[in-house]
């Protein structure tokens, strides 16, 4: 099980890093699309904290079965993939200076990165599931608790 555990740990760390970037991209998509909405709707572009909260509080949610080990830290973005490099660009800091079509362009890029990452993440969830199935199977067959490893 040691080798199985280390594969599981690597897959989970990868999933953690991807989820961190993905959720940040969700936040960017919310803010960019809300900015376009505000400009078109004549709400001006006063970026009050309330407006930010309104934009970020949306989006689907709902929890998937309690699991421990959901880390709360900034993942080191390895930048292996283009989608992760998008995170390192600070375009939101320049939002006040961007024209409408700049924002639309940016939205397209961020959304396609988000899709790419979500697909990768889905595959990782499947890998994690099958590794966990295998480890759980060993416990059902009488694997002892690794107390010496705690």
């Amino acid at each position: 099980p040691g080798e199985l555990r280390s594969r599981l740990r690597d897959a989970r760390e990868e999933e953690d890093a991807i989820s961190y970037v993905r959720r940040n991209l969700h936040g960017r998509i919310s803010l960019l699309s809300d900015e376009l909405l505000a400009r078109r709707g004549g709400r001006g572009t006063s970026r009050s904290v309330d407006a930010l909260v309104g934009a970020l509080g949306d989006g689907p949610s709902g929890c998937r079965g309690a699991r421990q080990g959901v880390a709360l830290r900034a993942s080191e973005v390895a930048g292996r993939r283009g989608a992760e490099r998008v995170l390192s660009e600070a375009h939101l800091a320049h939002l006040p200076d961007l024209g409408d079509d700049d924002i639309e362009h940016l939205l397209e890029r961020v959304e396609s990165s988000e899709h790419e990452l979500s697909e990768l993440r889905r595959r990782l969830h499947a890998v994690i599931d099958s590794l966990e199935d295998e480890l759980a199977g060993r416990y059902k067959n009488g694997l002892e608790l690794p107390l010496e490893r705690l």
Partner: protein
Amino acid sequence: MPEELADIWERFFKNPRDQDARERLILNYAPLVKFVAGRVRAALPPSVDQADLVSYGMLGLIEAIERFDRKREVKFETFAIPRIRGSMLDELRALDWVPRSVRAKGRELAQAMTKLQSTLRRDPTEEELAAELNVALDEIRDRLDASAAMSIVALEDITTVGSEEGDRVSLLDTLADLGAEQPGEAIEAEETRRALIESIESLVDRERKVIVLYYFEGFTLARIGDILGVTESRVSQIHSKAVLALRVRMAE
């Protein structure tokens, strides 16, 4: 050429009243609040509203921007995330989010656990806790369900290590650390970890198994239910009872 982020920070650092720099920094890092809200919410009951968490978290982000000291070698995100999470939990606590009656019942249960642990020289069963408090078994299970919901917000963390606030090592953080690659750095955290592992070894079989499978193997409660042959909600109660037993034992 758009201004570099480092230059916006520099501008804000030199003049904290520069509204333009401040607004751009808040805009730039606001998505972090969505990330933290998603993860904090994963540990809370579904009744907590995502938008509320985001608004509490935003306060933490703004405070982090104002307090960030660029001379320290840490990345802003690493500095900000604990503060965003902290302000979410502080606001939930201030809202008295967990009803007093629920907390009182939880405290009563902890007192019964303490008393029986010392008289029986082992952890009491649910039935023994029910007899001690003169309530039905279902009432004990309801209280265990309530404590699961309260966990990161209202349960006082009894395992204190250092003297000042900053040194306190929370039981839940130490448990969460069990699955981590590198154990806690501080020596106090190492002592707490040792004491926790001894306490885990003294749990009854099924509770010890739930704790190890949940915190060390990182399985979901549903999967643990499948391994043990019980429902997920039953696993949640076993988990809550085990954490209560550990909490009381570590407080000694």
